[in-house]
């Protein structure tokens, strides 16, 4: 895909749940599917043959419905769950080979995690929660309080540092969760359905907060969600999971324009395409027509429709910063708004 070495790399990852999960690998390798394995051997196939590269500084979103194995997948990265087979390579080191002590060190220094149900320590104040990661690392109290406070302010919680989690709303609790992960100062952040328990308005706020932080911090973020809109909004790299297998992965706009599977087409057909699709996905190489104006390459189509007041005869010049990179015909834009249904339809 790219020639950079990925930050996190999953190679042939399998997870089978059950008492004899190691023995079940032969059946799975021989091609047995999830329903057959459950029927004949009473073992649950959680993940099958996962191969994903996660680039440094990008948000990789793993999307799937409940039961698709996405939460299982994210727990493999820091080995809260051990795989049945396969490799997990973080910064070139196979995590499977680590001793307990080294693994703990890695969890402290390389990966932090944000949870769906927040999982804050209810008996600790907001500040103590935020500083928890540093406390585990053995950082002295003064430094960790200062550090925790810095990130609490950054996520918009100054003034609440002496409250307890139970006294805060869900959105605020998750801000504490994010502050806790940021205080750990790790390269990698794992976010397990971090915004799923929040109501829609708060969720949008939190997504914007995350994007804002990411623009500044460039962490490697692995984000799990079941919400396609959220996935498309956040993802640099989108992985779609179904029944424990990756069915398509790649750049989200690409998936939207070229779904590889009826399952994904179904998924994709329900979203507001004009808001999600961006100019770069429908533009064409620069030929030099008469332009009605300049648009940014990252602008979404909705904003363009508003600007053209619905006139489909217009053409716009696409700009990436100060450079003209292509042109956009409103006619193509309108066509792109119709989801592509599989050739049969």
């Amino acid at each position, binding site marked *: 895909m790219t020639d950079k070495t990925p930050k996190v790399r999953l190679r042939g990852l399998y997870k089978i749940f059950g008492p004899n999960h190691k023995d079940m690998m032969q059946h799975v390798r021989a091609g047995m599917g999830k329903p057959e394995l459950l029927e004949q051997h009473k073992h649950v196939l959680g993940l099958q043959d996962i191969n994903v590269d996660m680039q440094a500084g990008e948000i990789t979103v793993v999307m799937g419905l409940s039961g698709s194995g996405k939460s299982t997948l994210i727990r493999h990265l*820091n080995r809260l769950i051990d795989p049945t087979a396969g490799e997990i390579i973080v910064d070139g080191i196979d995590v499977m080979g680590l001793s307990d002590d080294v693994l703990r*060190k890695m969890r402290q220094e390389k990966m*932090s*995690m944000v949870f769906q149900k927040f*999982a804050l*320590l*209810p008996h600790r104040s907001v500040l103590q929660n935020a500083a928890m990661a540093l406390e585990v690392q053995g950082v002295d109290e003064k430094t960790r309080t200062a550090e925790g406070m810095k990130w609490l302010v950054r996520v918009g919680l100054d003034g609440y540092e002496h409250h307890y989690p*139970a006294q805060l709303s869900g959105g605020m609790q998750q801000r504490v969760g994010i502050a806790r992960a940021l205080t750990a100062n790790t390269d990698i952040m794992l976010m397990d359905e971090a915004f799923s328990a929040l109501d829609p308005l708060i969720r949008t706020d939190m997504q914007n907060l995350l994007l804002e932080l990411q623009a500044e911090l460039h962490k490697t973020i692995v984000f799990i969600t079941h919400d396609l809109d959220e996935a498309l909004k956040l993802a640099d790299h989108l992985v779609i999971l179904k029944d424990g297998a990756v069915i398509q992965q790649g750049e989200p706009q690409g998936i939207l324009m070229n779904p590889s599977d009826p399952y994904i087409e179904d998924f994709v057909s329900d979203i507001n395409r004009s808001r999600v699709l961006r100019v770069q996905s429908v533009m064409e190489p620069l030929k030099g027509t008469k332009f009605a104006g300049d648009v940014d390459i990252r602008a979404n189509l909705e904003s363009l429709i508003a600007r053209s007041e619905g006139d489909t005869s217009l053409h716009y010049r696409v700009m990436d910063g100060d450079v003209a990179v292509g042109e956009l015909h409103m006619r193509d834009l309108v066509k792109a708004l119709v989801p592509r249904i599989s050739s049969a339809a």
Partner: protein
Amino acid sequence: MAFYEGLFRVLGLEEWCGTGASDAPLSMADLLAQSAGDGAGSGPAFPFPSLDNLNESCGNFAQTRDLTKGLEDAFLSAKDSIKAVLDPITQPLSWLLDGALWMFAVIPWFIMIPILVAIAWWASRSIAVTVFVTFAILLLAFVDHYAVAMQTLSIIFVCTGISILLGVPTGIAMSKSDRLQKALVPVLDLLQTLPTFVYLIPLIFLFSVTESKLYGIAIILYAIVPVIRLTDLGIRLVDKDVIEAANAFGMSSNQRLAKVELPLALPNIMAGVNQTIMMSLAMVVIASLVSAPGLGVNVLRGIRNLELGVGIVAGIGIVLLAVILDRVSKAALSRVDMTHKTH
């Protein structure tokens, strides 16, 4: 002669039966039967094939009293080695109990009562509870039950303290290992359901009745159960998500125990401590049978000498102590809401 003789003849065991005769001592029932000249043929037409009935037909069969005698002999033969191990281990318990009894006796009432009231205030932070404790102690002192009440209280303090000291770590170990839990639960069930008098019996054989550890051990064995159970339960009930977060941030198991599990299990552990206190109080009364001093002695005197008034006053004194201990520990329990849900 006896009902099952035919059976042994059919089995060809007649000869073997003839050789043995029970050398167990005659029971009182047998003696009475003999002297009444009551031979065979009286009992029911088809007796249950119990040990005693089979023995009647076949002298080589053990009788039930051989079983109880065997148990007794086994215990007596093992007694010396058990004692050799247990005696030194439990000796500090005697010192502690004697020391506490001595201390409660030697501190004059005008110092002791304020100390107890202060403890009640410190633990409960409740004016109502503290006022009640003050009045209850003054009332006990007013009817000249101060000394015995203090004896009971000192025994409870020592035994509860040791129960917590031993019980909490045991509960923690149990919560960490399913195998240990499986092994200990039947033991705990046994300790809790065995009639309290029954485990006084072997203790009487092991230790002399003048040693305070005799009743100390009985009280601790009985009262330690709830604190173990509820420590185990409390730690197992800690939210799995929070445990997962602790792991995800790289806590070691000791850090997790100290920073997450124990603080969150504390309300349950405190409930266990409350139960332990109440059970030591129940046992300290029964333990007066084996020389434990305190209010129980007066109750016992009431029963032995049919002194109704003495028994009732001591009984009410025990109720007062129970209410004091319960209210103070419950108030302390309600204070340890670590999650700060209110305010």
